[in-house]
């Protein structure tokens, strides 16, 4: 915590709040019927995306995300207005409406995309890391994976490959306890995902994923290791999602009041506020001001998305190949 200066703390808070507000509003708009398709919200997990990405360079470092990708986008610096346009399927969206929530991406910011395929990202991250290593850019690449995605063959293979090639990569497992309706205690045979690190020749750590500072420290170690050329690491963040698997999920598999209790006791934003306040680093009014500012920002993004036209018919047939 002490290593972060005031601006950095403000940025971290701002980004976490942006994600939260973004997701709460998308939740509402989905319920209103304004957003089509499958939408997976990241609310509750903000400390992970922000704690990691705050240490990454937009121009150099890459991340690959999952189906639950809005938070990673925002943390990596994507523009919320164009993100919202994308999620509404509108013209001018980050992918011009062709990708939507599940394929939101911004390669210019090193964001290699949300992914509709569980386990789709880790191999791609090996590639970005290999490019960094081969071209000697000094960059690193981070794969965000869920607990469910930890059981996909592509993920295992990618970890082994990253070690064999000693790639500047980090494998972040966001263990939110569920893959759809299936508990990770059922699907991950060894209990903690971090126990797998040793079998792939890399260090592994379990971290409280609600604690921004714990995430930050663990990520720092892993990222520095990667940048130094010492190879990949595995991080397992234990955290929680506040909404259903996707919008529309009735969540009957969760315990009674489970989410209410989590919102109360395991909110990374509340925790962050408490920690920085107690340490006298930021004060409540400062953060309240950010909250208000972000609320307006996201409200503007939603209004903009609602008002925007759909992409033109001619775009149906473009962007298939480089030539058309």
């Amino acid at each position, binding site marked *: 915590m002490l290593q972060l200066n005031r601006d950095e703390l403000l940025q971290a808070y701002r980004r976490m709040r942006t994600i939260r507000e973004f997701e709460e509003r998308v939740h509402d708009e989905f319920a209103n019927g304004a957003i089509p398709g499958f939408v997976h919200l990241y609310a509750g997990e903000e400390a992970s995306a922000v704690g990691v990405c705050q240490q990454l360079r937009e121009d150099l470092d890459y991340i690959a995300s999952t189906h639950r990708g809005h938070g990673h986008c925002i943390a990596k610096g994507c523009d919320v207005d164009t993100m919202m346009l994308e999620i509404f399927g*509108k013209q001018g969206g980050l992918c011009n409406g*062709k990708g939507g929530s599940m394929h939101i991406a911004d390669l210019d910011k090193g964001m290699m995309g949300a992914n*509709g395929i569980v386990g789709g990202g880790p191999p791609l991250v090996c590639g970005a890391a290999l490019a960094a290593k081969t071209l000697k850019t000094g960059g690193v690449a981070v794969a965000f994976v869920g607990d469910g995605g930890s059981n996909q063959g592509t993920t295992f293979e990618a970890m082994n490959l990253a070690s064999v090639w000693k790639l500047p990569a980090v494998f972040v497992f966001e263990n939110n306890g569920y893959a759809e309706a299936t508990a*990770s205690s059922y699907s991950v045979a060894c209990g903690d995902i971090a126990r797998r690190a040793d079998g792939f020749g890399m260090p592994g750590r379990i971290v409280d994923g609600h604690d921004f500072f714990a995430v930050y420290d663990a990520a720092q170690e892993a990222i520095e290791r990667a940048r130094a050329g010492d190879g990949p690491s595995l991080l397992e963040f234990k955290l929680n999602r506040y909404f259903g698997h996707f919008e529309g999920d009735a969540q009957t*598999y969760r315990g009674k009041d489970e989410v209410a209790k989590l919102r109360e006791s395991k909110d990374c934003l509340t925790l962050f506020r408490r920690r920085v306040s107690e340490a006298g680093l930021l004060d409540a009014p400062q953060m309240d001001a950010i909250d208000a500012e972000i609320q307006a920002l996201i409200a503007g993004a939603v209004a903009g998305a609602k008002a925007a036209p759909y992409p033109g018919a001619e775009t149906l047939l473009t962007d298939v190949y480089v030539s058309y």
Partner: protein
Amino acid sequence: MARKISFRQAVNEALAQEMTRDPRVILMGEDVAGGAGAAGEHDAWGGPLGVTKGLYTKFGPTRVLDTPISESAFIGAAIGAATAGLRPVAELMFVDFMGVCFDQIYNQAAKFRYMFGGKAVTPVVIRCMIGGGFRAAAQHSQCLYPLFTHIPGLKCVIPSSPYEAKGLLIEAIRDDDPVIFFEHKLLYDVEEEVPEEAYTIPFGEANVLREGKDATVVALGRMVSLAMQAAQALAKDGISCEVIDPRTTSPLDADTILESVGTTGRLVVVDESSPRCNMATDISARVAQDAFAALRAPIRMVTPPHTPVPFSPALEDLYLPTADKIAAAVRQVMGRAAA
């Protein structure tokens, strides 16, 4: 007795009846029950769209197995179990996920019998969702059945209605070969009369939904109802369409199609899958080879364009075949300008 039920219920009922009939029939897949290891309800999901809901409660944990997100392992396990005495029905969820487990399907299940000189029997059914219109974007909207149809040793079934779904799924479960069962996600809420008792619809026998003399329209899955709509509209213009649903792409009932073209002399094939090397080309080519003499006009294929499926509703609506596009194609083979 027949009563109206949805496509979703028809699939569920077929599974329940076969599981009751034969204890070797088991179900597996991600959240086919839903809630494994969780604090709340088990049987919470029945798959992401609720198709198998209730079966876990009925048949218990040894018959309905939730899996980790490890398609190669559990699809392969279903296949291995089929060679060892069970008759598993595995759910791949979206067909789009075949890319992480295709090997087990086309190199293992499909080829065992041939490679092993006829000594293997692999009675496995792999269910999956296909198709666009759900605003589910490029990785959750594909059809991909041409890829499976290409593979010798697989059988491919594409039900077009609740009645078809129940009869074909029961047939699939009783069949001794590996069967891929493609359910169009936009059909789940469609209702029609479906008999309560178990019945089967044989593979390789096309369904002629409507007889006609001017043009043959072959359509698959959700496209069948669009073809019927088009046929109705065209009838008003005095164009008489024969509408054929092949039901299974492998085996394909080519005879019914060839005979029909023998009468009509004109063919339109409607296929929601991507246009290259798809079922539209497969059927068209077959007709151009084996019913050429009867053909009186160019064959026309109605398919989406050669692009991934776009997310934006505005674009996806343009992407998909429609009754209007089908009708326009029929008018074209009739030599009539668009109405």
